[in-house]
């Protein structure tokens, strides 16, 4: 990060560190990060469950918690970026299933190698994102309406096409087809670390978080994402390609949906066409708990990951602690509320002292 390979023609600025700033303490840098509220919450929750349910701390349990978190977290990566860009997507939950169904039905119906189905499913997923984006741009409708419409349409397509093609409401099993085993190894295998099987989705998740963070903080595109979410008009006025960035974000969400869709397909051999409904809110919740502002312009990919981890811990922790799960949703709602309040306070502080 510190390697500045400045072009030789450029004058090296001679300003030294301003004495009024002094060395920023690690703490104050941390406090300025969007995900700090979530991080504190995550640590507190971890300690809490470690005390009430000691089995929570066993490596195998942690692997399970991470797996539960990863299947939310993979989507939360894309959804976080999109929310920083000032939009959100209600079609993500069913889009995951659309992708899985595409891969499975295409391979099954035409008797193709499974990998061909996977590639076409990627095209389908990116296309869904692209269409969401282009409709949003062309109609200037709020993303709430546009993606609500695509959510309903995809739900219908999932059910209708699956029955029309496969003759049943769940996709036919493709476990005996060529390419299935290698695809399963890529999307739905486990990696043995010190005797503990960790699902591959955990690594895919982490990789996506790292890539997304890098893009957000270290590239132009990241700068543009923050800008279009923070103030779209200002961004347009200084020449940021708003249309391309927004459509790109929706396609990135589509890509994440494809990754998770493929995991769903190869972990369970067949997919139920009615699945996925309601999950879009979990992804949004993860992003919001992780410090992404609903109004855009603020947040981080790591925050979304921490949000997903909190979700995973709360969801599985209640099972480990053997509590009555009736309260889980209440608990989740409370987390969401607290996180949002923390975010508002942070935003106020960032914008204030004019």
């Amino acid at each position, binding site marked *: 990060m510190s390697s500045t390979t400045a072009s030789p023609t450029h004058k090296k600025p001679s*300003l030294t560190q301003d004495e009024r700033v002094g060395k920023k303490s690690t703490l104050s840098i941390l406090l300025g990060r969007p995900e700090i509220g979530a991080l504190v919450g995550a640590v507190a929750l971890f300690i809490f469950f470690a005390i009430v349910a000691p089995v929570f701390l066993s490596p195998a349990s942690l692997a399970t918690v991470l797996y539960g978190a990863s299947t939310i977290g993979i989507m939360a990566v894309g959804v976080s970026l999109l929310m920083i860009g000032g939009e959100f997507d209600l079609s993500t939950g069913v889009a995951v299933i659309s992708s899985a169904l595409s891969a499975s039905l295409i391979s099954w119906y035409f008797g193709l190698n499974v990998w061909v189905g996977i590639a076409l499913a990627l095209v389908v997923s990116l296309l869904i994102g692209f269409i969401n984006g282009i409709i949003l741009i062309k109609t200037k409708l709020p993303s709430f309406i546009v993606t609500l419409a695509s959510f309903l349409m995809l739900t219908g397509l999932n059910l209708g096409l699956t029955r029309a093609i496969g003759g049943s409401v769940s996709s036919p099993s493709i476990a005996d087809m060529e390419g299935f085993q290698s695809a399963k190894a890529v999307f739905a295998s486990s990696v043995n670390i010190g005797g503990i099987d960790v699902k591959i989705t955990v690594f895919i998740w982490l990789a996506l978080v790292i890539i997304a963070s890098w893009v957000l*903080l270290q*590239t132009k595109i990241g*700068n543009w994402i923050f800008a279009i979410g*923070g103030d779209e008009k200002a961004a347009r006025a200084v020449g940021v390609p708003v249309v391309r960035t927004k459509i790109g974000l929706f396609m990135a969400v589509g890509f994440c949906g494809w990754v998770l869709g493929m995991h769903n397909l190869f972990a369970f051999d067949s997919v139920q066409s009615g699945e996925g409904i309601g999950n879009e809110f979990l992804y949004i919740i993860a992003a919001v708990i992780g410090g992404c502002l609903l109004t855009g312009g603020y947040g981080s990919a790591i925050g979304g990951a921490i949000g997903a981890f909190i979700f995973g811990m709360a969801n599985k922790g209640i099972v480990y602690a053997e509590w009555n799960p009736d309260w889980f949703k209440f608990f989740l709602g409370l987390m969401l509320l607290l996180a949002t309040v923390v975010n508002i306070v942070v*935003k106020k502080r*960032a914008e204030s*002292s004019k």
Partner: protein
Amino acid sequence: MNMKTRKNKKAEELLQKLEPKTNDNLLTLKGVGKHYGSIIALRGVDMEVDPGRVTCVLGDNGAGKSTLIKIIAGLHQHDEGEFTLHGSAIKLKSPRVALDAGIAAVYQDLAVVPLMPIWRNFFLGSELTTGVGPFKKLDVQRMKQITKQELADMGIDLRDVEQPIGQLSGGERQCVAIARAVYFGAKVLILDEPTAALGVKQSGVVLRYILQARDRGLGVIFITHNPHHAYPVGDSFLLLKRGRAIGYYSKSEITVEELTAQMAGGAELAELAHELEQLGGHDEELAEAEAGAGPQVAR
């Protein structure tokens, strides 16, 4: 990347076409007009912008000021008259094209993205990168240093370029936007009501930076509805009313009082003063209030 090189080539071609020809103004408008459907937003506007000079555009709300700057900044295209840049007629298709042609606009509300750090705002849309191909990353260190340097050159002394720009005062934010335009090679700088939302002190700060920019050889277009802000810094004054130019003066031709009276529409103002006098007001104070118009929001 493909796209990028293409865009740069386009900009170069454009600039070549726009090579300065002698005796021409930097930017001229002749009889420029614009209508939205049946509504005429602007017509018959003439003006010139020259390097090292400040052209003020004055007018009340709805006079057509914003339409005019949107045409110059490439957000809208004129459909009447002639717009020439370096002597060649031109129609700007987008803000990007305008920027590439050296026209930068600083808007009152949308100059910056409040939640982003100062340095990110400074380079927004024109980020510096290092590396090749998909591994191109932002040259954060250099961008921070340049931001600090450029702001210092403009006389803006900031503690920390990493703080969100929203934390700066209104005047300081305008200044960052001006410094940004100057750094990125703007030849024409459009300032849209930079002082409208500012208090007296902050307005003074901004006016000083307008002169800074002028002294650096930029042609400045300063849009305001406050003659008292325009007069001290302006070299020529274009007055707009209901989409028409009602006067175009150089500084020597007009006094601040005349400017005020012209702007408020002399007779109308006298009538209003009379009316208010009958209600128990004082006409000098009224004139003062008119002159210092604009919301004096203390921030």
